């Protein structure tokens, strides 16, 4: 059969050793840096770029000549690149890549902001707010998937959460009851996800996607039948209050952003910390990870695999539900058909982007929020780039980041695999 002879081997391809991963990275950053210096630098007007430390033009500001800044930061990025390229500093791979990215972005900003001003507080606050639902959604994802249940249903949980918040909040005329309604909303989808994927072994991705559709249909149906008929009665939920933490709120930039804001932000930040330490330092975390990595092993030491999964999925439902509350009780004052418009999927992306770790996912969400806010800023201040392309920024940036920096990610070993004894 095998007519192959050794002959087709005589042409030897010798193993390429020079282009290691960090060399490639180095090359990329060198190029980016040079582009920044040349292109941004050339285009940037020689006027000052003001980065004010307030919500608007007022107050103190970091100032730099736009052109100078563009060239300067470009140069630094390039330097970082060269460092990697020569292989001189490969031990600092992570740090240098970070530096390169930051400086590239800064160079770009100097160009865009030159002759204008960028209010840092507003930028930070806006990024955080746009990231908020993503953070909560991603945390829900972490809780589920670390225990081995893929959660594609975040979108559905958001939607039900948003709906629940609007309905209950309005009926009870109380934002906190609204939040409660949101939790219940998320919980319902979570419970369905658990029943289908844990009890009935339905493929978890299938279950998730279908539940998204179910949530979309149900909320849409009830919206038409209920809320639309009498908005005042069903669809004008009170907003969550803003909590100002005295003292901390005074810290420049950070203060107003993190310590003078709505309860969901505090919740989200707290969850990131709690889940991070919970997973690594507590009995719950150890068992959750065991169940997500090697359920049989967990079972053999007497851990209730299915029980653990049930609990985590339900808790995740609550978290995502709270994320849903953001849409109707923070961002806006009313529910609207399909108002989450895909945020749940972005959260899913953030989860994977963040390598299934709380902190990583948090970072990914912030990254996305910032890119989004930046696009808004640029179009608002009259950038010449067509708005459609500016709005592509967050998505394209994510693709580049995932392909270029994150690369292969390893999901929990048993993620998505139903557990059956034996």
């Amino acid at each position, binding site marked *: 059969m095998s007519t192959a002879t050794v002959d087709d081997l005589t042409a030897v391809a010798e193993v390429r050793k020079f282009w290691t991963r960090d060399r490639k990275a180095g090359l990329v950053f060198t190029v980016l840096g040079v582009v920044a210096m040349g292109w941004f630098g050339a285009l940037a007007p020689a006027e000052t770029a003001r980065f004010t430390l307030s919500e608007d033009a007022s107050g103190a500001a970091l100032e730099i000549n736009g052109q100078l800044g563009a060239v300067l930061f470009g140069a630094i990025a390039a330097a970082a690149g060269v460092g990697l390229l020569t292989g001189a500093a490969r031990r600092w791979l992570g740090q240098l890549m970070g530096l390169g990215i930051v400086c590239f972005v800064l160079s770009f900003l100097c160009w865009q902001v030159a002759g204008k001003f960028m209010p840092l507080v507003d930028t930070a606050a806006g990024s955080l707010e746009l990231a908020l639902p993503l953070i909560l959604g991603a945390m829900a994802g972490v809780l589920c998937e670390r225990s081995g249940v893929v959660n594609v249903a975040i979108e559905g949980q958001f939607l039900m959460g948003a709906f629940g918040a609007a309905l209950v909040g309005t009926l009870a005329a109380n934002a906190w009851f609204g939040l409660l309604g949101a939790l219940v909303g998320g919980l319902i989808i979570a419970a369905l996800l658990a029943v*289908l994927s844990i009890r009935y072994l339905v493929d978890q991705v299938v279950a998730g996607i279908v539940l998204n559709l179910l949530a979309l249909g149900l909320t849409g149906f009830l919206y038409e039948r209920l809320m639309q008929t009498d908005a005042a009665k069903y669809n004008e939920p009170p907003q969550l209050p803003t909590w100002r933490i005295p003292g901390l709120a005074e810290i420049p930039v950070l203060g107003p952003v993190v310590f003078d804001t709505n309860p969901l932000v505090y919740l989200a930040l707290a969850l990131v910390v709690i889940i991070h330490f919970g997973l690594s330092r507590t009995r719950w975390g150890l068992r959750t990870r065991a169940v997500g990595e090697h359920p049989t092993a967990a079972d053999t030491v007497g851990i209730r695999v299915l029980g653990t999964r049930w609990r985590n999925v339900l808790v995740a439902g609550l978290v995502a539900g709270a994320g849903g509350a953001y849409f109707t009780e923070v961002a806006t004052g009313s529910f609207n058909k399909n108002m989450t418009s895909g945020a749940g999927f972005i959260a899913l992306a953030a989860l994977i982007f963040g390598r299934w770790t709380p902190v990583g996912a948090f970072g990914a969400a912030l990254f996305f929020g910032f890119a989004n806010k930046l696009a808004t800023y640029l179009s608002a201040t009259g950038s010449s780039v067509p708005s459609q392309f500016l709005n592509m920024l967050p998505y394209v940036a994510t693709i580049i980041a995932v392909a270029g920096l994150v*690369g*292969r990610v390893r999901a929990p070993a048993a993620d998505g695999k139903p557990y059956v004894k034996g």
Partner: protein
Amino acid sequence: MTATEQRETPEATLAREETFLQHFLHSLWAANTVTVTVLSIVLAVIVGGILIIVSDEDVLNTYSYFTARPSDALNASWDVVSDAYANLFKGSIVDPAAVQGWIDGSNGWQAVFSPISETLTYAAPLVFTGLAVALAFRGGLFNIGGQGQAVIGAITAAVAGILIPLPIVLAVTVAVVAGAAGGAVWGFVPGVLKARTGAHEVITTIMLNYTAGLFLTWIVLQRGVHDPDRTDAISKPVDSAARLPHLLGDGLRMNLGIVLAVAATWVVAWLLNRTTFGFELRAVGANPDAARTAGMSVTRTYTLLMVVAGALAGLGGATQVLGTAYALTPAVAGNIGFDGLLVALLGRNRPWGVLLAALLFGALRAGGNRMQSFSGISLELVTVLQALIVIFIAAPALVKAIFRLRAARAARLQTSVAKGW
């Protein structure tokens, strides 16, 4: 798992069945899919009926005095529900009145075929996007990018149809091919990124969906594409030579798209089971390590399969714009990409299954329109129905549990067998 499934295969359990009846029942439910599918639809319809009733004030009122005069409540409920589903049927399969009308000449034959024509019109693009998802699934990739690939396909097809003047047959061929090519490009990106850098296809395809949508809203308004004598975001109409010809006369929307869809189904089935690429694709999907050890190139397979998947979705977009819309608008691709996900799941990622699933969804959409307009039932109900059907079909054990048939446990294990690991 293998072990337990083995142990629970029907044959194994059969041994324990005593009476002939049990034996009969057993084998009936063992041959699961068909029965379950039917029951799933029945269940979905029942739940939908309940939703109709509870969402209809007047009917609900009759329940307020249910104990006093149940007949009212029951009749009212029956009327509203039966009316709704009757219209669902008339809108998707055939309307008896129209047949009558045709016989006594009060309306033309078109009226008789228009429901079925609508169903097929809606189904055609879903077949393509469904196949795009299913094929990727079989290769072990989760292609959420059907939407974006369809959008790009629609754009390239339309632009070709608008800008390249060609004689009749040639024009439509070129436009369709352009659509496939566009989708292929949009599928190639996540494919090659996955293969080369390991970037997770779920992330990249989601992001590419948004990117494609934004690109569409941009290109629609560009000089040469935008229709100068319209004050809307709409492109020039596609050259009539590049449109997919109607099959039942211009009165009915049914067009060549559905034929292409069936052909595509056949091709995909053939590709999967009769070609070496299909073999590689299935092997990589089932066990990449073993595939690699056996000398297959996993990266090449990922890239190639995403190209093919993208091309399929692109064709979906093309049929949309060349078959019904005839012009680009920001929402020209509708939701076909995401619906394709469900169609694939419902069709269990098997080509012919996808075709059937798409037909069912098409029928629901077509019938849904009539149900809304005649019975005033919101289209959202159709969405709910679709979701319920998929849920039930994905969880046969659930259906059986509800119908109290055989111990759910055994059935449960069948699910995973049926899921065809």
